[in-house]
C-alpha cells in the first residue's frame, strides 16, 4: 500500500476520504426528506457512529475498550450542566464535550494503560460501572437517578437547533468532526498504531515509545466519546443515567467489529446497518442482542475483516480476475 515505505506520506487515505464524504453527504438528507422516521434512525446512527469510532481508535492498537459510555457520560453531562447555566454556544459546548472527557482520561490512562490487553478490557468494563454509581451518588451535580431534563437547544451561529431537522444537521456536524479527528489521528500515527497492534513488545524493543501513543489514543478516544455524549444528549434533550449504561458499550463494540476493524469505514458501515436492523425489530428489541451475538460470531470466525474488509477482499478478487 502507499505510505508503507514513507510514513505520513499522505494525510488521508481512500477510506478516510470516503468516510468524510459520507458524513458530508448526510447534510443533504434533511434537505431531501421530511420523514421523522428517517431523521430519527439517521440521528441514532450518527450518535452511534461517533461512539463506535471511539472504540475503533483503541482497536487500532488491539485494545478493546468498554469505557466509552463513561466518557460519553462526561461529555453529555457537561453539556447538560452547561445548559442549566444557559450556555448553548455550539463551539463552546463542542470544545467542552471533547476536552473534559479527554482531561479525565489522562490520569485514568496513566493507570489503565500500564495494563496489557486483557486486563485493559476488564478494567474499562469496571470503569463504566463506576461511572453509573458516581452518577447516582452525585444528585446535586448530575440530578442523580432523575438525570437532567429540559436542556435548552444548542445554538449554532444564532440559530437554536430546535426542530428534528436541525438536530439531525447538528448530529451530522458532530459526526463529521469526530470522523476528521479520528481519521487524522489514525492516519498520522498509522505506522505506530500498526506496530503496536502487530506486536507491542517488539515495537517497544525497536524503540517505539509505546505508552505515548497508547495514551494519546486513549485521550482522543475519550474526547470522541464525549462528542458522542454531546450528540446523544442533544438528540434526547435529556441527560439520563440509563443512556450511559455500561451495557451500551457492547453495542458500540458490536458495530465496530461487525462493520470491520481494519478501516475507518468499518464503524461507519457497521453502525448504519446495525441501527437500521435494530429499528426493524420494532417491538422485539431483545432479538437485536441475539443478532449482534450471531453476527459477531460469524465475523470473528468467517469474515475476519467484517463487512468492509470482506467487501474489499471481494472487490480485489474481482479486479484480479478481470
Amino acid at each position, binding site marked *: 500500500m502507499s505510505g508503507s515505505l514513507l510514513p505520513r506520506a499522505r494525510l488521508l487515505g481512500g477510506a478516510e476520504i470516503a468516510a468524510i464524504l459520507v458524513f458530508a453527504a448526510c447534510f443533504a438528507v434533511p434537505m431531501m426528506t421530511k420523514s421523522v422516521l428517517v431523521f430519527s434512525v439517521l440521528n441514532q446512527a450518527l450518535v452511534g457512529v461517533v461512539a463506535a469510532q471511539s472504540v475503533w481508535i483503541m482497536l487500532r492498537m488491539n485494545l478493546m475498550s468498554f469505557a466509552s459510555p463513561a466518557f460519553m457520560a462526561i461529555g453529555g453531562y457537561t453539556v447538560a450542566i452547561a445548559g442549566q447555566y444557559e450556555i448553548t454556544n455550539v463551539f463552546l459546548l463542542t470544545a467542552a464535550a471533547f476536552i473534559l472527557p479527554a482531561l479525565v482520561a489522562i490520569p485514568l490512562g496513566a493507570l489503565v494503560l500500564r495494563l496489557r490487553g486483557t486486563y485493559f478490557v476488564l478494567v474499562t468494563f469496571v470503569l463504566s460501572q463506576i461511572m453509573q454509581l458516581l452518577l447516582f451518588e452525585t444528585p446535586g451535580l448530575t440530578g442523580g*437517578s432523575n*438525570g437532567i431534563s*429540559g436542556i435548552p437547544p444548542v445554538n449554532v451561529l444564532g440559530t437554536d437547533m430546535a426542530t*428534528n431537522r436541525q438536530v439531525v444537521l447538528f448530529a451530522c456536524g458532530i459526526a463529521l468532526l469526530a470522523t476528521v479527528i479520528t481519521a487524522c489521528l489514525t492516519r498520522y500515527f498509522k505506522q505506530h498504531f500498526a506496530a503496536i497492534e502487530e506486536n507491542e513488545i517488539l515495537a517497544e524493543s525497536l524503540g517505539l515509545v509505546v505508552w505515548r501513543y497508547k495514551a494519546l489514543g486513549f485521550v482522543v478516544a475519550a474526547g470522541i466519546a464525549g462528542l458522542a455524549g454531546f450528540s446523544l444528549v442533544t438528540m434526547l434533550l435529556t441527560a439520563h443515567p440509563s443512556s450511559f449504561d455500561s451495557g451500551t458499550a457492547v453495542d458500540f463494540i458490536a458495530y465496530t467489529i461487525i462493520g470491520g476493524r481494519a478501516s475507518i469505514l468499518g464503524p461507519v458501515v457497521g453502525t448504519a446497518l446495525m441501527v437500521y436492523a435494530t*429499528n426493524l425489530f420494532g417491538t422485539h428489541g431483545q432479538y437485536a442482542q441475539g443478532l449482534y451475538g450471531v453476527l459477531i460470531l460469524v465475523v470473528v470466525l468467517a469474515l475476519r475483516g467484517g463487512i468492509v474488509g470482506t467487501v474489499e477482499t471481494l472487490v480485489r478478487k474481482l479486479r484480479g480476475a478481470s
Partner: protein
Amino acid sequence: MKLQYSALALAAALGLSTAAQAQNCELKIGAMGPMSGGAAQWGLAMAGATELAAAEVNSAGGIKMGGKTCKVVVVPYDSKYTADAAAAGSNAFAAQDIKLIVGPVGSPEATGIKPVAARNEQLAWNAAYAKNALEPKFPLMFHIAPGPAVWSDTVIKAAMKVFPMKTVALIAPNDQGGTDIASVDAEAYKANGVTTTEEYYQRGTTNFAPIVTRILAAKPDVVDTASSPPGDAGVIIKQLRLAGFTGAIGRLGGPGTDEIVRVAGGLDVVQNFYWFETVATDEPKVKEIDALYKKMLGKDPVGGTALWADLPAARMTLKAVAAAGTDDAKAVAEALRKLPVEDPNMGKGYWTGKKQFGIAQELHFPFGVGIIKDGKNLGVARQEAKPD
C-alpha cells in the same frame, strides 16, 4: 407479535364488517412501553389495553372524525425501559403521523419521551411514579394513574388497622424508579406517626443478605419494599424471613404481588403482607375486563392487572378524539381535560395532579389495598378515589 396484532385487527374488522360499513379512514394510535426485558409485562399490558379500547370502538362502528368514520388501528412500540428508546419511539410514531400515544410506562421512559413528544406535538400518557411524571411545561403529557403522593396515606391507614406499627424500614433500588417512590412513601408514613428509615441498593444486586442484616439492626416493626422490582422484593422477603424477621412486609410501589409471592417461596413464607393495587382487582366489574378482552380479541390478555389499570386511559383518549372530531394532539388534550373521569369497569374517578404537579392531568380511579395475614390472602379491598 406484529403479525398477531394485525391479524387480530383484521379479524376484528372482518367480524364487525356490518357495523363498520362507513369506515373509510384509519386512526392510528401508538401504544408504548417495555415489551422486552424484565419489565416486558408492563409494556405488553399497555399494548393490550389499547388494543381492547380500539376493538370496542371499532365494534361500535368506528370513530367519527371530520365527517368520516374511522377505524382505530394500534401501533405498538418497544421502549425498552430506557429514555433513548422512548424518545426514538416518539419519532417513529411521528413518522407514521401518529399523534396520540398510550404509554410509556417507566420513569426513564417518561423522562425520555417528554421533550421529544413535545417537539413532535404528540399527546402521551405515562404510568411512571416519578416526581416529575407531569410538568406544566409539557401540557400534552397525561398520567395514567397517580403516584404514592395520592394513595400512600390511604394504604398506610388501612394497613395500620391490621398491622400496628411504629417504625418502618423502606428498601428500594438507588435509581429514579426507587428513590422517587420510597421517599414519598416515607413522608406518608411519617405523617401517620411512623418513624422511617430508607435503604437504597444498587440495581443488579442479587443477594440481599447484607442489606437485610443492616435493616434489621434498627429492629423495625415493618419492612416496606416500595418499588423494588418484584423479583428483588421476593428475594428480600425470603431473606428477611430467614433472618428471623416476623413483622409485616409492605409494598407501597408497583404491581407484581403474584411474582413476589412466587419468588419468596409461597404464602407460608410471606406470612404478613400488605400492598397497593392500582385498581380494585377483586371487584367483579374490574375482573370482567379479562373476559371482555377474550371476547373482543379472541385471545387471553397479557400483563395481568396492569392491563386493567391502563385501559381507562386508552378508552378516554378515544372518547376525547370523538369529542374533538380530530386526532390533533392539542384539540384532543383540550377535549380530554373536559371529559368527566368515568369508566365502565372502574367506576367514577377524578382528574388529580394539580396539587402534586401543578397540572390536573392525572386519572385517579378507585384503587385497592391487598392484605395477606398469617399466610392467608384476605384479598384486595376497594378504596374510593378522592378529588385533589
